[in-house]
């Protein structure tokens, strides 16, 4: 029978070991400059950084983009996860159109910030290139 003292002891040991494990894992495998919320975000970050290695993309924005992409275009995300190049290109393009990159004149020296998911049905007339 587990008494109260033993239970608290076991809980403390579990928490201590977990925290130690997490600290050790971080030491052995440093996280990227940004922290990603889950494996889906890591996947998307990997695709973006693989295709746009010359751009500085802030991590929080990638988190937000991944969340929006999952909600708005889950099919694309599924195909991208399967390694489909066309889907990976599409989501990369969508990220750039959703960011301030083109608003800043496609200046590759500036950090790229996610603004809002590029979706003509959510934000009509948001084409950054069209001269109307």
């Amino acid at each position: 029978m587990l008494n109260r003292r033993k239970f608290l002891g076991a809980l403390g040991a579990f928490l201590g070991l977990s925290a130690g494990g997490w600290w050790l894992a971080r030491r052995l495998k440093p996280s990227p400059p940004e922290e990603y919320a889950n494996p889906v975000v890591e996947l998307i970050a990997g695709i973006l950084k693989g295709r746009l290695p010359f751009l500085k993309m802030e991590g929080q924005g990638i988190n937000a983009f991944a969340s929006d992409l999952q909600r708005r275009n889950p099919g694309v995300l599924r195909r991208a996860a399967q390694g489909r190049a066309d889907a990976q290109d599409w989501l990369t393009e969508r990220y750039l159109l959703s960011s301030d990159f083109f608003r800043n004149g496609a200046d590759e020296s500036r950090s790229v910030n996610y603004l809002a998911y590029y979706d003509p049905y959510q934000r009509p007339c948001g084409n950054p290139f069209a001269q109307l």
Partner: protein
Amino acid sequence: MADNYDTIIVGTGFAASFFLAAYLQKCSSGERILVLERGRRDVHAWQLRHQRSSSVEPSATFVNKNPRKSWFYTPGFGGGSNCWWAVTPRMLPGDFRLKSAHGVGRDWPLSYEELEEFYCRAEDIMAVSGPEDASPSPRSRPYPQPPHRFSEPDKILKAAYPELYFNQPTARARRPTARRSACCASGVCHLCPVDAKFTIQNEMAHFYQDPRVTLELEATARHIDIGGGRAGGVVYEQQGVLKKALGNLVVVGANALFNPHLLMQSGLSHPQLGRNLHEQVGVTATIDLDGVENFQGSTSITGHGYMLYEGAHRSQRAACLMESWNVPSLRLERGKFRQRLQLKFMVEDLPETRNQVRPSPEQPSRPETLYYGHSEYAQRSIDKIPEMLDGILRPLPVEKIAVSPKISATENHILGTTTMGDDPARSVVDRHLVHHQIRNLVVLGSGVFPTSSPANPTLTLAALSLWSAHHLMA
């Protein structure tokens, strides 16, 4: 108990609505017109909310025996106008004389010159935006709206080919109309977020509110009553109940799948009825440019190139209309994001009798498509595109040309199953779209096209509806 009408029209898409518009101008104030629409009235707000153009799934309404070939249409009030991209080129004069000029296909039973006035009227109704400086086809008056803005690659091609490259004529509004906002290049024209493209719902719905018109929705025409060489009315199904309407004139304006099916279900037969099912064949190409930025245009497709259209080659291979796409399609390379051009080639097809629509043997109430493929004539042109592009694009600083090996699944055009012609033995309807044998039966739409031309068919089929109504009421 049957209801009595003067005229019964089947369908509410382009063909039926343009006919109705012209018919109402000429008919008497006491005329009674019944319009039957198989679908519902899914308004634009509904379409935006559900991200689809119809509450009825089109593929469930017919049997497709070739899953590799798609046919698409919108069942519902306004028909194909709900989902079209609003591309409105005219056919060229030579398209009407393919047989006599090039020895292939068929001639149309009317000339470009005869249809020109009706092209103008259709363009006025749609408030078409088109080129101001010149036009690939002769015009008696300017386009109702100014052209959309070119992209930079368009400008270079226009300078190199002043007589062969033009702003695309389109019913995506350049300027706001009373009922539509201006196009802002969202690039999702199948369902415009700002309702800028012409649709029957936004520009022609008022014709259906005319007191002479009774519109019945969810009413599927089952057959036309034919006896003594005349059409006497239409039997239709509404909410599971068969109903009958009597009329002195029956006008069939569904589409090129359902028009021949309805005629066949009504006991009519003809060696050409349901035959010659075809549409244009679409091929795309991606061009990487060196130093030229793209996508500045003010609408989704900005340029039309006629370099592969007219010429002696049409005796051997199909004409081709080139579209320059302005929807952002980025090149994921450092410093070259916008240095890319997407082209689409619309290749005409020669109709072949082996491709057809017939009542499904298993489910006769539904049409069945038997499609074996496009013509060799079209394929020879498709095969030539990579070679021809090298020369055509010489004015542009091209880094790389990649022509897609895939053919588009469909162009959303359905053509050729109720062919028009002067010879009753070789055609279903005459030059005014009146059935050769049943003289109070009119068959509208792109099913009457004897040949496809590479031009998108909608403006021509709308003009033909105006032409037909004009001659019927003369």
